[in-house]
C-alpha cells in the first residue's frame, strides 16, 4: 500500500534503462515516477532537430543489442518501434579501392575474394565461430551476477545457475570464451585473416567505447559483445531505429506511460533522501522532496553514488570501488547536415553504400596509431570513423533531397591535454571532416550544419560522468560480478532501498535495456 502522494518507486533518469525499469515495475502493478533532468526523454538515446528539418541521433546511432524480450514484453512495436535494416559496411581504402560487407553471404564472399581468397573462406568460418561463442555467452546477459565470495543462499543459487549453464558448454567453447575474454582484437583477427583493411574494420568494433587500442588485451571481448545482437538474427534487433535512437526511447516511454508510469522531464534530482539508514525518496534541485519505497538510479555509477548520495551512507570500500571505476570517455561524434550525399571516390554516384555503415578503418595500425595519440592526451590526428547516413534509411530525418550524417569518432579522450574548449572542439571537428574529405571530396561543400560532440560535451549534455558511452568501459575487470563494484553487481547497493540499473551495471552499455529490466526484477523480488 502506498500513501497518497508517495510512489512505490522513483527512477532517476529517463534514459532507455530508466524507462525500461519503470515500465517493468509498472507492469507489475507498481506506482512509478521517472524524473529526468532534461526536457526530453532518452538520455544518450535521443533524436533532436538541431537545424530546421534536420534530425540527428545525437549520441547513440544504431541499435544492436536491444533485448528482444524487452521489445516483446513492453510491446514496443505497438508503441512505434521500427528497426530498419542497415545492410552493409563499406571501408574506403587509401588506394582508391574499397572493402565491403553486404547483406548477402555470396556477395560478401565474392567481394572479399577480390582482396584475399583465403580470407573469403576464413570469414565464413570466423563468423560461425563468433556467432557460436556469442550464443554460448548470451545467457549470461540475462543472469544476475553471483558474488563468488558469498555463501549466501541467493548467491549460491545464482552460482548454481551459472554452473549449470557452464556445464552445458563444451570444453572447446569454454576455452574459446576464456581466450576471447582476455585476448586483444588484433591477436584474435591475426589468427584468422591476412587482409589488413578487413582486420582493421573488424577490430574497430573491439574498441568502441573503450579507452583501449586494437592491440590491447580485452578488446576481443568487446568485439564479441557487439556480436550478440547478431544471434537474434530473425528477430532483427539490429539496425537503425525509425526516427533515430530517440525513436527507441520514445517507444519505451509510450509503453511505460501506457502502463501507468509518470514521467516528469525538466526535473533534476539533487540528492537521494536517506532516513533511518534507508533511501526513502529524492530531493529535487528546486528543493521539493518526493517520497517512495525505493529509489532506482539509472544514471552513471559516479553520479549515482558519489554525487546523489552523501558518502556517509555508503561503506568506504564501496565508495573507493566506484571512484576507481574506469569511465574514461574516448569517443566523439560529428553530426553533419548535408545539402547533398557525400560522393566516395571508391564507389562514385549514389549507391547501396549510402544505406549502410561507412567505416574509416584501413588497417589495424591505423587504429592503433589513432589510439597512440589518445594515450598521450591528444585526439586522434587520423581517427577511426564510423559513419551512417540516417536520412537514406529513414527519409524523415532530413528535408527531401538533403541528408544528415552521423560520424562516430574514436579517439577523443575526455582528459585531452589542456582540457576541452571551443577551439579544441573546432579543431577536432576539422580533423574529422578533413579525414572524411580524403575519401569523399565533396563533403565540405555539402555541409550546411555541423555539431561536434566531445566526451566533455557528452558529460555536459547527457550527464554521463567522463563521457563514456557505456557509463564505464567494458573491461574485463569491470564486467559481470565486478560491475559496478564487487559484491554489488546484483542491482542492489549498500544503501537499503537504493537500487542501480543503468549501463554501468551488468551486462553493460549499448541500447540493450538489460540492466533496467534486471534491476526492476530484483526490486520486485525484494518486495515479494
Amino acid at each position, binding site marked *: 500500500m502506498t500513501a497518497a502522494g508517495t510512489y512505490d518507486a522513483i527512477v532517476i533518469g529517463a534514459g532507455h534503462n530508466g524507462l525500461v525499469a519503470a515500465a517493468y515495475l509498472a507492469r507489475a502493478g507498481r506506482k512509478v515516477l521517472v524524473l529526468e533532468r532534461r526536457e526530453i526523454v532518452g538520455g544518450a538515446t535521443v533524436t533532436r532537430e538541431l537545424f530546421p528539418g534536420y534530425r540527428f541521433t545525437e549520441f547513440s546511432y544504431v541499435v544492436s543489442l536491444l533485448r528482444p524480450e524487452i521489445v516483446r514484453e513492453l510491446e514496443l*512495436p505497438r508503441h512505434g518501434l*521500427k528497426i530498419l*535494416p542497415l545492410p552493409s559496411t563499406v571501408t574506403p581504402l587509401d588506394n582508391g579501392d574499397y572493402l565491403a560487407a553486404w547483406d548477402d553471404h555470396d556477395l560478401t564472399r565474392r567481394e572479399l575474394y577480390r582482396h584475399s581468397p583465403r580470407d573469403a573462406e576464413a570469414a565464413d568460418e570466423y563468423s560461425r565461430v563468433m556467432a557460436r561463442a556469442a550464443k554460448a555467452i548470451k545467457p549470461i546477459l540475462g543472469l544476475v551476477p553471483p558474488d563468488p565470495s558469498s555463501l549466501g543462499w541467493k548467491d549460491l543459487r545464482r552460482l548454481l545457475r551459472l554452473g549449470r549453464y557452464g556445464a552445458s558448454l563444451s570444453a572447446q567453447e569454454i576455452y574459446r570464451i576464456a581466450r576471447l575474454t582476455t585476448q586483444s582484437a588484433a591477436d584474435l583477427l591475426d589468427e584468422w585473416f591476412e587482409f589488413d583493411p578487413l582486420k582493421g574494420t573488424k577490430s574497430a568494433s573491439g574498441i568502441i567505447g573503450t579507452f583501449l587500442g586494437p592491440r590491447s588485451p580485452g578488446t576481443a571481448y568487446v568485439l564479441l559483445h557487439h556480436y550478440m545482437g547478431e544471434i537474434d538474427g530473425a*528477430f532483427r534487433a539490429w539496425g537503425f531505429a525509425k526516427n533515430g535512437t530517440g525513436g527507441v526511447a520514445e517507444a519505451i516511454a509510450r509503453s511505460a506511460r501506457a502502463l501507468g508510469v509518470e514521467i516528469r522531464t525538466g526535473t533534476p534530482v539533487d540528492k537521494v533522501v536517506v532516513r533511518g539508514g534507508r533511501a526513502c525518496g529524492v530531493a529535487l534541485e528546486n528543493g521539493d522532496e518526493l517520497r517512495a519505497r525505493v529509489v532506482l538510479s539509472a544514471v552513471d555509477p559516479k553520479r549515482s553514488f558519489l554525487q546523489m548520495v552523501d558518502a556517509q551512507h555508503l561503506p568506504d570500500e564501496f565508495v573507493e570501488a566506484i571512484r576507481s571505476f574506469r569511465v574514461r570517455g574516448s569517443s566523439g561524434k560529428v553530426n553533419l547536415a548535408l545539402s547533398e550525399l557525400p560522393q566516395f571516390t571508391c564507389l562514385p554516384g549514389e549507391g547501396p553504400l549510402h544505406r549502410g555503415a561507412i567505416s574509416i578503418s584501413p588497417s589495424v595500425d591505423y587504429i592503433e596509431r589513432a589510439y597512440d595519440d589518445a594515450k598521450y592526451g591528444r585526439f586522434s590526428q587520423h581517427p577511426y570513423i564510423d559513419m551512417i547516413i540516417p536520412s537514406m534509411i529513414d527519409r524523415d530525418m532530413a528535408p527531401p*533531397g538533403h541528408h544528415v550524417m552521423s560520424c562516430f569518432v574514436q579517439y577523443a579522450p575526455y582528459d585531452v591535454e589542456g582540457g576541452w574548449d571551443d577551439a579544441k572542439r573546432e579543431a577536432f571537428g576539422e580533423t574529422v571532416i578533413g579525414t572524411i574529405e580524403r575519401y569523399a571530396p565533396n563533403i565540405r561543400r555539402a555541409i550546411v550544419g555541423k555539431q561536434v560532440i566531445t566526451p566533455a560535451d557528452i558529460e555536459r549534455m547527457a550527464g554521463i560522468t567522463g563521457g563514456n558511452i557505456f557509463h564505464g568501459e567494458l573491461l574485463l575487470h569491470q564486467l559481470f560480478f565486478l560491475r559496478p563494484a564487487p559484491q554489488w553487481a546484483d542491482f542492489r547497493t549498500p544503501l537499503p532501498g537504493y537500487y542501480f540499473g543503468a549501463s554501468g551495471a551488468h551486462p553493460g552499455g549499448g541500447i540493450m535495456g538489460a540492466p533496467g529490466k534486471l534491476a526492476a526484477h530484483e526490486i520486485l523480488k525484494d518486495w515479494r
Partner: protein
Amino acid sequence: MADLHQLKRTPFHERTSRLCLPQNWRRWAGCIAVGSYDLGLDREYWAIRNHAALIDVSPLMKYSIEGPDAARLLDRITPRNIQKLAIGQVYYTGWCDDDGKLLDDGTVTRLGEQSFRLTSAEPSLRWLAMNAVGLQVTVTERTEQMAALSLQGPKSRAILNRCCESSLDGLKFFRMAPNTLAGRPVTISRTGYTGDLGYEIWMDAADALPIWDALIQAGHDYGITPCGILAMDMARVEAGLFMLDVDYTAATHAWIPGQKSSPYEMGLGWTVNLDKPGYFVGRRALEREAREGSAWKLVGLEVDWEGLERVYGEVGLPPQIPGMAVRSSLPVSKDGRQVGYASTSTWSPVLKKYIALVHLERPHYEPGTRLDIEITVEHRRRQAPGTVVALPFYEPEWKKK
C-alpha cells in the same frame, strides 16, 4: 517482341527487367512479374512500411462495364449495393456463385453514372457476359490495354503531389479521381494491397514508361523503391488481405465442396448487403448462412515468440524464421484436435511477430482463443502456441487519414 510461347510481359518490362538483377521472376495471371529486385526482401518490404514502394500491378484483370444497365449488372453479380456507389468511389468486394461461394474478389470503381471499372484476379468476361443477358451493357476487357502501378507507403502522397497535375490531398480512402501525370491522363485510386497509405495509378499501356520514369524521378528524394510481389505478399498478410488460389479457391475451380468458401467465411461479411433490393447471385444461400452462422471463419493467429523459442530451444537452436511469406498449409489445433489450418504465414518485421491467416471451425475463431500451430523443427513436427486475433494485424494510423 513478345514470344507467343512465353508468358506475357507487362508494359513496364523495359524498366523492371533492367532492375530485376536477381532474375527473381514469378507468374501472375499469365504474365511474368518481378518477385524481388534485391537478393533479400528487406529493402522492398521497408519501402512499403516506411517510404514508398512502386509495384507493377498490370497483370490484374481489368474490365470496363458501360451502359444504362451497368450498375444493374454489378448489383446483380456482387453482394454490395452498387446503387450507393458514388461516382469516384471504389468498392472492394467478392462475388459468388448461386450457392453463395466465392468466385473471385476485386474492386469496382464508378467512373461515371453509367461507367464502371472492375478488377479481378481471374478472367471474368464469361461470367460477366452470362449475367448481362437482357441488360443494356457493354463489357470490354481492358487488361492488356491498361497498365497499372501501385505506389504504397507513407511517402506515396508526397510523391504523387510532386508529379501530378492535381493534388492528392483531398482524395479519401477508396476514392478515385482523374489526374495528369507526366502529361498523360491517368486515374488514381486510393487503394492497394498493403494496408498502408497507398494509391493505384491506372493508365493507357502506351503511357506506361514515361509515367514510371516520372514517378521514379519525383520519388527519388522520398526513397521510392521498385518493389516486387514477394515483399507485397508479406505486407498483405499484415494487412489481413487474402489471395485467390492461396487463401481460398474459386468455386468454379474447386474439385470438392470443401474447397469452396463463402464471403462470410472469408471475413467479408461486411461486403454482403442483404438489405439491398432485389436479387443478386448467391443471395438465398448467403441469407441462409447469415441466419444459421458460418461453419468456419478466416481470422488471424499471432504465434507466441516464447513458444517458438521453446520448440527450437529443445534442439538447441534459436527460432528460424523464413525470409518471405509461406504459402503452405499448416494444421492448427486445440488441445491436440485439429480445428483449422493456416493458409499463409509470415514473419512481420513491423510487428516483430510471426503471424498467420488461419481458417478456423466455429467456435474457435473468437479473438483471444488459444490454439497451436504446427511447425517443423529439424524435420520433426512441433506445436507452437498462439492467440486468435481480429484482422488486420497491422493498420497504421495514416492509412485512412
